[in-house]
């Protein structure tokens, strides 16, 4: 084990997969020579050459369309879309093309492509460079959405995503590239479509996604001091969802709080709440609480953005509500 940042974990995952499989290539705006806006792909072009790691026009349409075409014809493209907000531009290529070709073909042809993109408010990048795009794609059968939370998971899940035969949207929280954590030194992957319990607890289940997992973990630490034993579940792959661990946890704790960064209304939390209401209603001892952003675009002013982004206080309050405190 060694300490690595999220950025290093992603960079190493990409390097290891480029090394392992010559069908893998990496491209996007500024990912080659410049090393990516967030320097995530730094050094990869030097190491693997311009044929494997290269720059593209400022055209998400080209990136999305060529990635689908390449994935259908025997290679495994990894594209970088600089900001999740720009996913709206390649939404057609993802929802109508990538997600549907396995269904459309009858010979088992898959679409092994990964779309890496960033999301996350908190850096005053404003309403077109901060959104979480999960809600836009969660209703699209055929796509996988992966949102890791720790350096360990970032690396293992990205490697698994590149090896996966389905199209994957891989979400990177741009405020957490500097976060550090333990990462195994050797080869490993983290399986897609498996939820993980990040913290064991008895009193309340907190399901948190992506960057909100840390927020939930910190809230859980503070709640412990208050005598509340929170269980934190990180789905890691948001779609398709590994639901059973969530149901099992709710059956044990009888309380559920869901935390994500996108707006609460129409967000992924509503889907989990509905699933639990269907599968485990009679185990609930309190109304389900959702913690998410308000139904506004991501605001720019520092204080507004702070008010927008869910934080530990919000999680703690929601947990207290479920406990009737």
């Amino acid at each position, binding site marked *: 084990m060694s300490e690595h940042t999220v950025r290093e974990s992603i960079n190493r995952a990409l390097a290891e997969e480029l090394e392992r499989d010559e069908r893998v290539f990496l491209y996007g705006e500024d990912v080659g020579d410049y090393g990516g806006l967030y320097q995530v792909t730094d050094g990869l072009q030097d190491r693997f050459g311009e044929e494997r790691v290269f720059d593209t026009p400022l055209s998400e349409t080209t990136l999305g369309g060529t990635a689908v075409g390449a994935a259908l014809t025997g290679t495994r493209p990894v594209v970088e879309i600089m900001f999740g907000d720009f996913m709206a531009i390649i939404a057609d290529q993802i929802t109508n093309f990538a997600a549907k070709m396995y269904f459309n073909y009858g010979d088992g042809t898959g679409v092994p492509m990964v779309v890496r993109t960033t999301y996350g408010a908190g850096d005053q990048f404003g309403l077109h460079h901060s959104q979480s795009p999960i809600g836009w794609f969660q209703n699209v059968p055929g796509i996988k959405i992966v949102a890791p939370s720790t350096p360990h998971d970032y690396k293992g899940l990205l490697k698994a995503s590149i090896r996966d035969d389905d199209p994957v949207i891989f979400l990177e929280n741009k405020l957490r590239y500097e976060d550090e954590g333990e990462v195994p030194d050797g080869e490993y992957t983290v399986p897609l479509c498996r939820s993980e319990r990040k913290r064991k607890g*008895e009193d309340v289940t907190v399901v948190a996604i992506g960057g909100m997992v840390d927020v939930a973990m910190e809230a859980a630490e503070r709640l412990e001091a208050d005598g509340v034993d929170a269980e934190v579940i990180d789905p890691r792959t948001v779609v398709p969802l590994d639901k059973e661990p969530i149901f*099992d946890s709710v059956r*044990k704790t*009888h309380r559920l709080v869901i935390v994500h960064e996108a707006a609460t209304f129409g967000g992924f939390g509503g889907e989990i709440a509905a699933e639990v209401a269907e599968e485990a*209603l*009679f*185990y*609930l*001892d*309190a*109304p389900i*609480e959702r913690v998410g952003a308000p139904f506004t675009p991501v605001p720019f002013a520092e204080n507004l953005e702070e008010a927008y982004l869910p934080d530990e206080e919000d999680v703690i*309050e929601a947990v*207290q*509500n479920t406990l*009737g*405190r």
Partner: protein
Amino acid sequence: MQTLTLPKGGKTMEEGTVVEWLLEEGEPVSAGEPVLYFESDKATSEITADEDGVLLERSVAEGETVPVGTELGRIGSDDEAIEGADTAGTEPTDGEPDPAGKPEGEPDPGSKPKPNSDPAGAAPRATPSARRIARERGVSLSAVAAETGVRQITRDDVEAYTPVGADTNGDDVTTAAEPDELTVEPVSNPEYGDVLGSPWARVLAANHGIPLSAVADETGTDRVRASDVAAYVENEPREPGPEPTGPGPDAAVGTEPVTGSIDEPAIAREGPPTGARGVMFDRMSTVANEYASTTTVARVDVTDLVSLYDQLSAAWGEDVPLSLTAFVVRAVARSLPEHDVLNAEVTSEENVRVYEDINVGIAADTDEGLLVPTIYDADDRTVRALSREIDRLASGARDGTLDHDDMQNGTFTVSNAGNLGAYINTPQINPPQTAVLGMCAIVDEPGVVDGEVVPRKMMHLTLTYDHRVVEGATAVGFLRTVKSLLESPESLLS
């Protein structure tokens, strides 16, 4: 006036025991609400009130056994109420009450904002006794709340309140309830009264046979949660109902009290199997419908094992709750890698998942039915460590203190029906696993050693396996390995 007498619950019923009074003397009761539980030799049943009124008298105390026909108590109208009957002790002393009922214009710095406040909370919160007195006096709880500014109205608040233009003598007042109080007036549901319960609290209460209204009275809340039910059960220990484990909610909610009949055979009880028995029902149905269960049996000479066991028991003393099962689990864990299709699951029609980890489930018989807690990484544990773990799991199963993880992730199961005396017992597979090993009783039988007939201790081991995925030869080979390990028990200590 209603006289409560012990009914004849069945042809053979001669007497009955009062298990529990649900009301204190002087407490009001609505028609249809249960008043007490009694137990006959067949079942626990309830007696309900025929009319609205108060419980005037309890003639027979809880725990007393009396003949059929004995008067148990009386229900009558208010004015027959026993003077001085006091139902104090229901004041809430803890918890932060819901601010939802707080009147406007009264900021409360201590309260947390509640963006998702319960619409039902629009009515003022009040303790049951406060609500009863308010009702008796014709006092509006909203008015009390507005006057006092408290977030949960107590009996004292109501007593201290003098409504404008109203006579405080409750006997003469017939003021109709205000619309906003309708939600807190008694409703006709005899089980829940005017109390709301969380889904889980309702399940727990139903499983314990407790009306939510009783919990509300005891704990001073009209929003009953699981913790309130638990507190109620703890404060007034009663005949325990089945713990709501497994599929509890779905199964438990529909059960009804049972009454006998003169002509037909009296039904002792009925209803879907719940808790661990519900789990058993589902799992065994799966096995019966989907598995190709086949059993093979080995006869094991455990003479040496028993003497080693006696020797070690004496040497290790009470520190180690040594068990023969531990030796068998040790032998099983050693033998599984070589026959790993037995350490596996059938995950779907055509998928067999063979495990690397060896997590052995131990079937344990408890009051609630069969539970199968798991020994994780059994192959990494010594006989001594296994004994301790088995002891922990067995007592946890009996006490209901096992946690969630203890009850899952098993990859193979060992069931010991031997200590129940079974000569040959073939336990059923615990799906989705592929095999289960049954231990049977140890019996003294003649055996042949060096050509001489001598007394030996023998035990049957039965291996039931899913023949869809396990070949007969594998099963027999596995049993042979386990048998030879158990017949050279010293090897299991290394």
